[in-house]
Structure formats: structure tokens, C-alpha cells
């Protein structure tokens, strides 16, 4: 086997290795050196982490197991500092020497750090890797004021993230307009106005000359002598190819490591790919061209006939909520170009396309980017646009038809997920799809940024021809198994008296006879909500955690979390939990976020006996139901408490436990406005005041961080129970399955909810339906303990020795 060594463990390099493994899985013995202590992760998503939309786990592209499965020797936290191109081996900073037949340099780039005094102070960072990201998140916990240097793509995304983290943010930019390399002055001023309204402050045409402070940064000094205060400085002014190892080893380097159309460097059998490589005098920093390079390189290394890489035209968009922006190609008129422009200042829409010799050479779209895919295709394929209407993009079946017909099958429609027109057409034909939603479910097209949705819709219209129903195609169906929406489903269940999941799928002609993981749990919920105590729950239509009444962990073990009403326990219960944990050798005993004790790492077959020995009700830590009611100590012991928060919490938890809700519901009860139970970020929160309770709704402490809104102020515990029952039942009857209260209230409006619940008759009726529903629940752990058939079906494992 030939030895392939790669320096660098980032997106471009690892994608190249994936391409090589696809072409020729057994040709190479592969070794990868990565300077960072992580497997390959999605650097583009760093701004999502900063903006709070993703965790590091979620952005890992190739987990460590992937390297293992493909027999790749991976050295993380180790960098190569010398290549001997004569004798063909590399030496690392830890003195390791590894021979190669082929060597790929994929060292990527570093943030360009301004060479000014003070740039090495604490609190000054680039925005390039997860380390930078974590440092910024940590700074935001302690400090208030950030300055981002650089008003380009990366700088603005970093600034938005820092705003989300609660910092005040100034953006310093050298030029008179933002993103000047992608936007013309009009688009740039629209962007600036939008970001200012989101809370960013801009210091334009300012050149930073010094970073001041003691050990840690305290501020910046500009060329004109003015200052800005800063606790954190993020430099996002560009990237610098990481070329040192190549340069030190005698390989030809200009701005990047210079490569030809087959990604070959000046040294034999040494290649470069990604942000460290310079191809035809361009260093690319966006992912699409780097993946194209990787493909060419893989073919070359595997000895396949490779088409040369001839450079890429790239499009850019900004990943900031509330900003719809797209740019590609040239920006400025040069006397040989003509512009086609639409400017609607009132609605904040601006589009400009630059034309030269009947061909699109530049695109800037702001406020409405639905033409971007089509225009980008015209640009990259150099289509003659004579007689073509540039901004005509109404998605009618006829209008889009001609356009789609001429589109080749291998053309990329969804750039985010790499879905071609051909793949979409095939999915529509072979799986009988009729709505946009179904196409997205089946192919992933349009599921990331959503920019290609109008195009996908056109393809759907074109493929279905006469059978295309424009109104139906736009509908949000429950899942890919049907075209009906939630509202239609509920109306049908009531009207036709449907009473089981199977009957619903049958009568309403599901195209997938036994449904999927999206519709079955939803139908089961809606049936239980409508038929109240008459419906028999379909356990096999629930997903694993609710079916097993335990949370599955990533290694297939489960967790056991018993109910601890209001977070109040006794010495005797604690002893019992301790004994069970010891007896079953539970690997982890941990206090959960909801004031109770979790036992983690339990084998499936041990669940029923552990439940039996605990002799406590399930805490439903796994369910779309009431999770916990967090309480503070309150008036019983606390000198500030004005109300008995523990008693109210326990009463609430005992009344509403086990209730099926569209998504999980958490409550908190505090005895005074100091709010130790964090009731302001719960689905329903109660805050004791002198002589009564404030009820807050739609708070959320998770992904969708949101402070609760005051629903009502009431005097007695009885009123609390009445208002809570009515509110919860109204949520149960009106929210979509899997819609948290925070999202639901945002959607229907707080005023609407208040108005409904202001009516005493309505509240009474809601509470009656709530009470009828609550009658049907029985304790699930106890049910399992007493039923042999449940134990057999869900909790048994069987061992067979062959030949016995």
C-alpha cells in the first residue's frame, strides 16, 4: 500500500481524503496530522455557535470513529514542522518522522492579526477556530464591551454573535462602506441601517493603530487620535494562508502555496489544497471552491483521469437573522458593463445585476434573494441573456417551465446540501411527491438556508406538469407521508370520528401505510388530545424515550430519574436511591437541572427491577409532558419569601404530572421577585408577591432563550391552579406537535392568549376538558413492573449459544 500523509485536519483536507476513499478505498495507508486537538469540524458553523444556535458536538463532521473505521492514523495536537522533499518524509514538533509516497498540505489559514502595538494583549483574538469562539463566549460572561475590527462577512457575523451573548459591540471598519468587496454602496448602506437597528455601532473609516491596556485590553487608539473602550477585541480583517512548513521546506510560496490545475506544488508528489493553496493567483476562503479542488486532487492522487481545476466563481451570503443578502461576481461598473437595477427603498429591497456582452458578470441582492440561484447559474454558465427577463421570478408553472427544462440534471440546486436537479426530479418521480415540504424531507434540498426553495418549487411544478397544484404544494404538511396539514388532520379526526393511528393513516390515505417518526407520534398526540380519556395510547407510535419510559443514552443504556415533587425529598428516599445505585452499579449519579436525582448508564433489562426497588413514580424526564416544577425554599424557611413556593410547586406537579403536551413543559415557582427558581425562563413561571402571585408564560431557557411574559396577577393558590389549567389546555389544543410554548405564544400572540383566558366561561370549559383528560393516566413504571407482557416486549434481552 502507498503511504499518504496529510498535514492539516480541516474541512478541505478531510473532504479530499473522503473523495480518495470513495474512489479507491484500499490504495493508501493514510496518516493525518492536525494541530487542533479535535476531529474535523464545520468551521462555517462557528458563527452559529457564537450566535447560540449550535453546540460543538453538532458541528463535528468526521467524529473520531470515522478515522478509526477508515484505518486512518490521526495525530491531533501535533504539527509538522519540516518536509524532506528529497527523501520523502515529514518531521513533527514531537520529533516523530513519517515517510510518504504522496503528501497533501492542507494547513488552512490563520486570522490576519494587525501588526500593531498591544495586539498580543489578553482579550485580543481572531475568529477562526473553536478556541477563538470559546474565548469569546467566556469573555461575554465577564465583560461588557467588545470591538470587532473588520466590517466584512466574518466580522459582522462575529459582531452579531457577540450581541447575542449580551455584549455591547462596536465594529471598526477601515473603508467607508461595509463588505465593500461584495456589496455596492447602496446595498452596503441598507445593511448598515439594518444592523444598527439590531444594536451594532459602527466606527467607519477608522484605522486602529494601537491596542491599549495593562495585561488585558482596555481600549483601542485610532489614527485620528480618538479612542474606543473595549474589554474584548476581535480581529476579523482577513485570512493569511498558513504556509510556513512549505516555505521552510523549499516549496514555492507566493501568498499561498502555489499549485497548478491539478493542485500540484513545486515539489514532486507534494500537493496543496484549501485555504493554504494559491491557484492562478487566487486564494479561496469559501467552502465550495475548496471542495472542488479536493475532488480534482483526489482523482489525481488515485491516478484517475482528472479534469483540471480551472478556478471558481463564488457567491456569498451573510448568516445573520433579519438580513437577506447575496452577492457574486463583479461589483463595480467599469465602462464596459451595464446595470439592471430594482430599488425599493420603502420595503428595503435592492437588486442589481451587472451585464457585460449580454452576460451576467455580477449580482448583488438585498432584502429578497429568491433570484440568486437562477442568476448565479446564468453567471457561472455564462448564459446569453438576450430576451431573458432578469427579475421575472414568479414561480408559476408556465413561467418557470422553460427555465427548468433547459437546466441540466447535474446542476446543483441546493448548494448547502449538494442536491442536484436530477436528484430532486428522481425523488419526485419515484416517491410520488407533491409538495415542497415532501421534497425537502426526502432530499434535504432547502433545509439549510432555504434560498433554493423557489427553485425547488419550480422543479416540482415542471416535473408534475398538469398534476401540479400550486396551493397544495406550498402547504406545510405534517410529514412526507401525507399532504394534509395539522388543522386538516384535527378537523378530519373530529368529523370522521377517527380513533386510532392506524385508522387515521388508512382513511386519510397516507402514501406510506405505516407512517414515519414524524407523523406517528403527532397523530397519537392529537388523538389523545381530542378523545381525552377515551383514547387508548399507541405505545409503539411513540419514540424510544417515551416508549421505554426512560431516556436512551448514546451508548444504548438508559437513565432513571424518579419524581421528586417540587425538588423536595427525604432522608429515607435518598437512602433508597443510594442503595439502588450501589446495587446496580450505576456509573453516574447526578443532580439534574430540574432539582432531582438522575441515575445514568442503566442497562435496559435492569430498568423494571430498579423501578420496583425505588418504589417511586417516574419523573418523566424523557417526555413531552410536564417535566419538573422547580421551587425555591420560600416562606417556610427563607427570610425574604412572601409565599409558600414549595407547597404550590408540589401541588402543581402532582396535578399535572403525566399529562401529554405538544412538547415538554417546565414550571418554576419563586416566593419572591428575587426569583431563585428562575421562573422567568420557564414555560409557566410563578412569582410570589405580597398578597398574590404573578403568572409568567412562554419563557424558555434553552435553544430559544426567551424571558416569560406576564399573563396575569392573581390573589390565591386556587386562582393559580385555575389559570394554569386553562392555559395549559389551550396550549394543548392549539399548538403544533413539537412546538414549545415560547414558539407558540410568539406565533399566536400574547394578546390573543390573554384575551381567550380573560373569559371565565372559556376557562371553565378548558379546565373541564383538562380534568377529564387527567383521569386517564396511570403510573407507567408501576404498570411495567406488574405486567409480564410489557416487560417481555420492551425490557427483555435474549441470549442464545449456537449449537445448544
Amino acid at each position, binding site marked *: 500500500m502507498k503511504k499518504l500523509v496529510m498535514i492539516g485536519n480541516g474541512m478541505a483536507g478531510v473532504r479530499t481524503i473522503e473523495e480518495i476513499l470513495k474512489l479507491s478505498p484500499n490504495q493508501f495507508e493514510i496518516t493525518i496530522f492536525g494541530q487542533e486537538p479535535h476531529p474535523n469540524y464545520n468551521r462555517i458553523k462557528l458563527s452559529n455557535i457564537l450566535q447560540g444556535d449550535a453546540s460543538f458536538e453538532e458541528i463535528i463532521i*468526521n*467524529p473520531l*470513529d*470515522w478515522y478509526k*473505521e477508515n484505518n486512518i492514523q490521526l495525530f491531533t495536537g501535533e504539527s509538522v514542522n519540516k518536509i524532506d522533499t528529497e527523501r520523502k518524509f515529514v518531521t513533527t514538533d514531537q520529533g516523530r518522522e513519517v515517510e510518504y509516497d504522496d503528501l497533501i498540505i492542507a494547513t488552512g489559514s490563520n486570522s490576519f492579526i494587525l501588526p500593531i502595538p498591544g495586539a498580543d494583549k489578553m482579550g485580543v483574538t481572531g475568529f477562526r477556530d473553536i478556541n477563538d469562539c470559546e474565548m469569546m463566549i467566556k469573555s461575554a460572561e465577564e465583560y461588557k464591551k467588545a470591538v470587532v475590527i473588520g466590517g466584512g462577512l466574518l466580522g459582522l457575523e462575529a459582531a452579531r454573535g457577540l450581541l447575542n451573548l449580551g455584549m455591547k459591540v462596536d465594529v471598526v471598519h477601515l473603508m467607508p462602506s461595509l463588505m465593500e468587496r461584495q456589496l455596492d454602496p447602496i446595498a452596503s448602506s441598507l445593511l448598515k441601517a439594518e444592523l444598527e437597528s439590531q444594536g451594532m455601532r459602527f466606527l467607519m473609516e477608522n484605522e486602529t493603530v494601537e491596542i491599549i491596556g495593562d495585561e488585558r485590553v482596555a481600549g483601542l487608539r485610532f489614527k485620528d487620535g480618538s479612542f474606543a473602550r473595549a474589554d474584548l477585541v476581535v480581529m476579523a480583517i482577513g485570512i493569511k494562508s498558513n504556509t510556513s512548513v512549505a516555505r521552510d521546506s523549499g516549496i514555492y510560496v507566493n501568498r499561498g502555496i502555489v499549485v497548478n490545475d491539478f493542485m500540484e506544488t513545486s515539489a514532486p508528489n507534494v500537493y496543496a489544497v484549501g485555504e493554504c493553496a494559491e491557484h492562478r493567483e487566487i486564494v479561496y476562503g469559501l467552502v465550495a471552491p475548496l471542495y472542488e479542488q479536493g475532488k480534482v486532487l483526489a482523482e489525481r492522487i488515485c491516478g484517475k483521469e482528472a479534469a483540471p481545476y480551472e478556478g471558481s466563481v463564488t457567491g456569498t451570503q451573510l448568516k445573520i437573522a433579519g438580513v437577506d443578502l447575496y452577492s457574486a461576481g463583479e461589483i463595480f461598473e467599469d465602462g464596459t458593463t451595464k446595470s439592471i437595477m430594482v430599488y425599493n427603498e420603502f420595503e428595503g429591497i435592492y437588486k442589481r445585476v451587472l451585464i457585460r456582452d449580454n452576460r451576467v458578470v455580477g449580482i448583488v441582492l438585498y432584502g429578497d434573494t429568491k433570484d440568486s440561484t437562477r442568476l448565479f447559474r446564468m453567471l457561472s454558465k455564462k448564459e446569453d441573456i438576450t430576451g431573458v427577463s432578469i427579475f421575472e421570478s414568479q414561480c408559476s408553472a408556465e413561467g418557470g417551465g422553460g427555465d427548468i427544462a433547459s437546466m441540466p440534471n447535474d446542476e446543483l440546486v441546493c448548494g448547502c*446540501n449538494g442536491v442536484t436537479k436530477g436528484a430532486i426530479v428522481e*425523488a419526485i418521480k419515484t416517491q410520488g411527491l407533491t409538495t415542497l415540504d415532501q421534497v425537502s424531507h*426526502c*432530499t*434535504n434540498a432547502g433545509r439549510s438556508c432555504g434560498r433554493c426553495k423557489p427553485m425547488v418549487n419550480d422543479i416540482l411544478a415542471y416535473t408534475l406538469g398538469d398534476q401540479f397544484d400550486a396551493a397544495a404544494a406550498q402547504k406545510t404538511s405534517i410529514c412526507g407521508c401525507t399532504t394534509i396539514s395539522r388543522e386538516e388532520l384535527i378537523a378530519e379526526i373530529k368529523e370522521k370520528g377517527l380513533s386510532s393511528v392506524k385508522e387515521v393513516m388508512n382513511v386519510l390515505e397516507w402514501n*406510506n*401505510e*405505516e*407512517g*414515519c*417518526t414524524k407523523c*406517528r407520534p403527532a397523530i397519537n398526540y392529537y388523538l389523545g388530545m381530542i378523545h381525552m380519556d377515551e383514547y387508548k395510547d399507541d405505545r*409503539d*407510535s411513540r*419514540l*424510544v424515550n417515551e*416508549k*421505554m419510559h426512560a431516556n*436512551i443514552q*448514546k*451508548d*444504548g443504556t438508559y437513565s432513571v430519574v424518579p419524581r421528586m415533587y417540587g425538588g423536595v425529598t427525604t432522608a429515607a428516599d435518598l437512602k433508597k436511591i443510594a442503595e439502588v445505585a450501589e446495587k446496580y452499579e450505576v456509573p453516574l449519579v447526578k443532580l439534574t437541572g430540574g432539582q432531582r436525582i438522575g441515575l445514568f448508564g442503566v442497562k435496559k433489562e435492569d430498568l423494571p427491577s430498579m423501578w420496583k426497588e425505588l418504589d417511586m413514580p417516574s419523573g418523566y424526564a424523557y417526555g413531552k409532558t410536564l417535566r419538573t416544577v422547580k421551587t425555591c425554599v420560600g416562606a417556610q424557611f427563607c427570610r425574604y419569601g412572601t409565599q409558600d413556593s414549595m407547597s404550590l410547586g408540589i401541588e402543581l406537579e402532582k396535578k399535572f404530572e403525566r399529562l401529554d403536551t405538544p412538547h415538554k413543559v417546565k414550571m418554576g415557582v419563586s416566593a419572591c421577585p428575587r426569583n431563585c427558581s428562575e421562573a422567568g425562563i420557564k414555560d409557566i413561571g410563578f412569582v410570589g408577591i405580597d398578597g398574590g402571585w404573578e403568572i409568567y408564560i412562554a419563557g424558555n431557557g434553552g435553544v430559544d432563550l426567551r424571558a416569560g411574559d406576564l399573563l396575569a396577577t392573581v390573589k390565591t393558590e386556587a386562582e393559580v391552579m385555575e389559570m394554569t389549567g386553562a392555559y395549559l389546555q389551550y396550549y394543548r389544543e392549539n399548538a403544533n406537535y413539537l412546538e414549545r410554548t415560547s414558539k407558540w405564544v410568539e406565533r399566536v400572540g400574547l394578546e390573543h392568549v390573554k384575551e381567550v383566558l380573560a373569559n371565565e366561561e372559556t376557562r371553565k370549559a378548558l379546565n373541564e376538558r383538562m380534568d377529564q383528560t387527567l383521569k386517564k393516566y396511570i403510573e407507567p413504571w408501576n404498570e411495567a413492573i406488574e405486567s409480564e407482557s410489557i416487560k*417481555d*416486549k*420492551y425490557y*427483555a*434481552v*435474549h*441470549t*442464545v*449459544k*449456537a*449449537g445448544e
Partner: protein
Amino acid sequence: MITTKTMTLAANYSDLPVRAGYAVNINDIEIALFKVTNGRVYAIENHSPHPKGGVLTEGLVSGEYVYCPVYDWKISLVDGKVQAPDTGQVKTFQVEVEGDNVYIII
């Protein structure tokens, strides 16, 4: 090398629940048996091809497919293939049903 195949009695047909998984360990191979609505029995390795792994017995069964309970991949019980947009394949085992005996051929 001569490879031998062994027929192993894995379960009783009447013990298998419909539309649910049945975990069985045969000579340290974890196997998931599924009896689907039409009565057929399928055997696949009880391990998701998702890079992070996970068991399959607790997945939701629909027709001749099971959804991986941890990462929601749709997997064919017939040939083990992961359905688009995800990719991969689970090992499948041949099943023989004779009377009430369910054999797996390994």
C-alpha cells in the same frame, strides 16, 4: 478457507411482538429481530451505521423499515440499506421460519 454457515434457533415465532424489535445475542453478536405487519421476520445487526452508533431494537417500525431511535435514520429491514438523504448499510442475516421456530443463519 472454508466458511461454514450455522443455523441457530433464535426465538419462537409466537414470542415475537409485531412492529417492535426483539434483541437477541447469538455467540456475542447482537442481533435485532423484527416481525413486521405482514408477518415476515427480519434479522439485522443491532447497531446503527450512524457514525455515533446506537441500538436499533427500540426504533419505530413502519412497513419494512425501522427508524434508528437515536438519530432517526430510516433503514430497510430487507437489505439493511440506509435510506436517502443519509447513507450506509446495516448487516442483515438470513432468517428461516419453520413452524414456531425462528432460525438465523450466520
